């Protein structure tokens, strides 16, 4: 029963991550919204899968979860840094470091 709640929560966060692509203006906001929503939704979804049936997922699933948790923000950062270097400034101006 808890797995259903976790799976539904994961789907909801995935939806919110998707909505971030619609509602937010500018690449930086979308990167932030989507990055948080996706990885959170994926984490909840995967934990729901583990809780539901550990025999079929096992430690490889935990490895996938840890991988997503670590590389999600790194990918978002890489894109944001590339955008900043190419001269795209966020709304607040964003001084160079």
């Amino acid at each position, binding site marked *: 029963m808890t797995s259903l709640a976790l*799976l539904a929560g994961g*789907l909801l966060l*995935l*939806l919110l*991550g*998707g*909505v971030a*692509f*619609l509602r937010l203006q500018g*690449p930086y906001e*979308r*990167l932030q919204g*989507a*990055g948080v929503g*996706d*990885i959170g939704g*994926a984490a909840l*979804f*995967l934990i729901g*899968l583990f809780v*539901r*049936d550990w*025999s*079929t*997922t*096992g430690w*490889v*699933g935990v*490895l*996938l979860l840890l*991988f*997503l948790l670590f*590389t*999600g923000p*790194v*990918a*978002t950062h*890489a*894109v*944001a*840094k*590339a*955008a900043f*270097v*190419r001269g*795209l400034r966020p709304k607040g101006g964003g001084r160079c470091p």
Partner: protein
Amino acid sequence: MGLKGWLEVGVLVTAALPLFRLWKGPTLWDRLAATSSLNVRVALVLACEASFTGRGLLLDVALAYAALGFLGTVLLARFGERGER
């Protein structure tokens, strides 16, 4: 359709939004963010398929896919940063 079908359809329906951004996104960076988002969702569908049907191999495929998706996003971002545009 079983729970598996509903979950996968749910993930793929939420994938429509980044797909829209991938199509419309004015800048390259929107498209890279949408691609990264789509990669995570495909890996999730694979993991869901593996978990429900009991085929452990699909989970390894999901892990490999997530790794390659991440690699692709970072390399494209690096290329966009230093590209010859």
